[in-house]
């Protein structure tokens, strides 16, 4: 069961008591500064309303029947796009077929930054202007736990039955009540083929002396730490704890201090691969395909021997969205195997829809055997999903990860 703060009556009572004491003091004018500060600050994080309120957040009234629109926030390069018409063909087809006007925006450039942007409004139950948001597993877990998403009505999404069996029961959303997978991918290792002719097999190979100062790892905690923990023999989907985490963090600390790791980076590691500053990296599978396509076949990606991470991005309806039914219609549309294959042919990530592989035969036969879109059983057996963390773990782990990478 997801832990939702307002469901704990003791805690709720405690916070409510705190709040009212403060209000009384403020009313008496006893703490003018505190009063002024609190008045200014409520808008600052917008969280006090939520923690102080008696129940959870209520979903917005669904106006889908009156307003035939759906707004979808996604990452860049994540839906089939036609350069010549500057439109998204599959989305156009959806609008034509359903009569629902779909507005697509590439608003999301990072889970953390997007959360920072929308949290205040979500905590107050407000409409953020998006009816579907697309976020990675752990952030989806956080939003669902916080009660920031609406429960989906699977009767409106019959095609959701096509979701791959392995993704149907994720630990952060059993039964997929609040989310559906958009695309998935791996984190693994990659290297410059010319500079590292022998290639790399394990994460430990990144610490070879000849790569000193030319290695970069991801600033996405779950991917970098996940690979490091697997290298230590930990099953990252299992019930590991702080000890296993600390052991991996120590490895990271050591490699940063010694200068073996040049930088810890987000998406921009790609530029360093191109410039040659980075010769070996912990990275995302899709990026390397794309780089090889753009810059000539210079790099090779591999899932490390000890295993790689598997992540997914998930479609969710935010709590304040007044167009849930329209959003569900759109999800249903992309869970149709043909439409799923159309999108997958463009984005080159793992397609989560059963039957899309067969549909791909007609769209682009060459891609049917691409293991980065339709993974082999072997590959899937070698990757794991980083287990969901509870709120305290998440804060503690990301705090110490940030400190280790110098922030």
């Amino acid at each position, binding site marked *: 069961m997801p832990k939702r703060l307002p469901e704990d009556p003791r805690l709720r009572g405690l*916070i409510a008591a705190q709040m009212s004491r403060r209000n009384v003091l403020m009313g008496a004018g006893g703490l003018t500064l505190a009063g002024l500060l*609190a008045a200014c600050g409520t808008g600052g994080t917008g969280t006090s309303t939520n*923690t102080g309120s008696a129940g959870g957040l209520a979903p917005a009234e669904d106006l889908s029947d009156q307003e035939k629109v759906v707004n979808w926030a996604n990452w860049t390069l994540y839906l089939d796009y036609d350069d010549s018409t500057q439109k998204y063909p599959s989305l156009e087809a959806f609008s034509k077929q359903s009569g629902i006007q779909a507005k697509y925006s590439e608003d999301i450039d990072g889970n953390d930054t997007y*959360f920072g942007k929308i949290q205040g409004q979500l*905590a107050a139950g407000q409409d953020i202007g998006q009816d579907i948001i697309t976020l990675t597993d752990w952030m989806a877990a956080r939003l669902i736990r*916080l009660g920031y998403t609406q429960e989906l009505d699977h009767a409106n999404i019959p095609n959701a039955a096509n979701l791959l069996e392995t993704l149907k029961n994720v630990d952060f959303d059993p039964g997929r009540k609040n989310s559906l997978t958009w695309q998935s991918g791996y984190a693994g290792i990659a290297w410059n083929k010319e500079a590292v002719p022998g290639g790399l097999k394990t994460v430990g190979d990144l610490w070879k002396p000849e790569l000193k100062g030319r290695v970069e790892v991801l600033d996405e905690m779950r991917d970098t730490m996940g690979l490091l923990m697997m290298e230590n023999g930990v099953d990252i989907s299992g019930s590991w704890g702080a000890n296993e985490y600390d052991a991996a963090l120590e490895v990271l600390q050591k490699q940063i201090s010694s200068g073996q790791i*040049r930088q*810890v980076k987000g998406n921009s590691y790609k530029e360093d691969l191109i410039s040659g500053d980075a010769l070996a990296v912990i990275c995302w599978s899709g990026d390397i395909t794309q780089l090889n396509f753009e810059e000539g076949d210079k790099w090779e990606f591999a899932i490390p021997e000890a295993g790689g991470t598997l992540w997914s991005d998930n479609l969710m309806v935010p709590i304040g969205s007044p167009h849930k039914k329209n959003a569900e219609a759109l999800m249903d549309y992309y869970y149709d195997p043909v439409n799923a294959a159309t999108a997958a042919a463009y984005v080159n990530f793992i397609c989560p829809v059963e039957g899309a592989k067969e549909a791909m035969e007609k769209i682009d036969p060459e891609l049917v055997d691409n293991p980065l879109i339709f993974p082999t059983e072997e590959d899937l057996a070698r990757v794991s999903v980083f287990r969901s963390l509870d*709120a305290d773990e998440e804060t503690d782990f990301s705090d110490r990860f940030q400190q280790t990478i110098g*922030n």
Partner: protein
Amino acid sequence: MSVQAAADKTPAPDKRRGGSERGSGELKEERRRGRMGYWLILPGFLFLLLFFVLPVFSLLATSLYAKPPGADIGQFVPALEFNNYVRMLGSYWPELLRSFGFALIATAAALAIGYPMAYLIAVRLRHHALLRGILLVLIIAPFFTSFILRTQAWKQILADEGPVVSVLRTFALLPDDGRLTATAFAVVCGLTYNFLPFMALPIYANLERLDIRLIEAGNDLYASGFTTFRTVTLPLSMPGVIAGTLLTFIPAAGDYINAALLGNNRDTTMIGQVVDSRFFRVVDYPGASALSFVLMLAILALVFIYVRRFGTKELL
């Protein structure tokens, strides 16, 4: 407006300074002008109130929020949790000091590069309008492209396989495994480069008004070029220097783009990066706010001391 007042409206500047000669009409006129001034600053005042003063209070309030037991990520309640400051300063004083250190070096470097540039354009080339225009455009031109793109370009220029590093290696100025990017040196260079125009332009604006006859007078009195510079040009240009150093130092101390792109994860982290990571990654809004507030106060204090020590009355 009375005839008398109209006549008084444009008194000779020197006369106004001789306070003893003031008539009562002049005093009234001055008061009226004073009131007029208040009206003129009203829009600016309202703007600052809305977009600076209120956010600062919000920041201060957030910096004192507390996390109730069992709260989920991003859930804080209003409180007076001064421990946030202790906690942040205890953990991040090195980054704070480093930020000021880097900003100080970058400011000094920008002054060393920017002053001669401004001097050349404003004084030496005073009568070469075309050359002057071209050089000014060259200083301003970098603003036409994005800050991040320019820093990114630096990364490519200074890359391990790039031209600069290979030349330095050839002349053994850099060991074979040495590098320029991902070092503190690169971060300071990036800061210097990115804020150079903020240094050069105020100094230029100041030197442009410098009366060259004063330099000639210095020569006539047998002062060497350096003495003339030290005793005439430099003191007269101090307002420009002060403005330039402030415009460079303040944003440089809070900058995080340069450190993020050109630095590493060991010894180049600046306080702006920490604020970013506390706010977005760790979702520690109070901590991030406390650090921002400390940064603001520290800069304010440093600027105050600096302007008190070296400043001219025109700035305070």
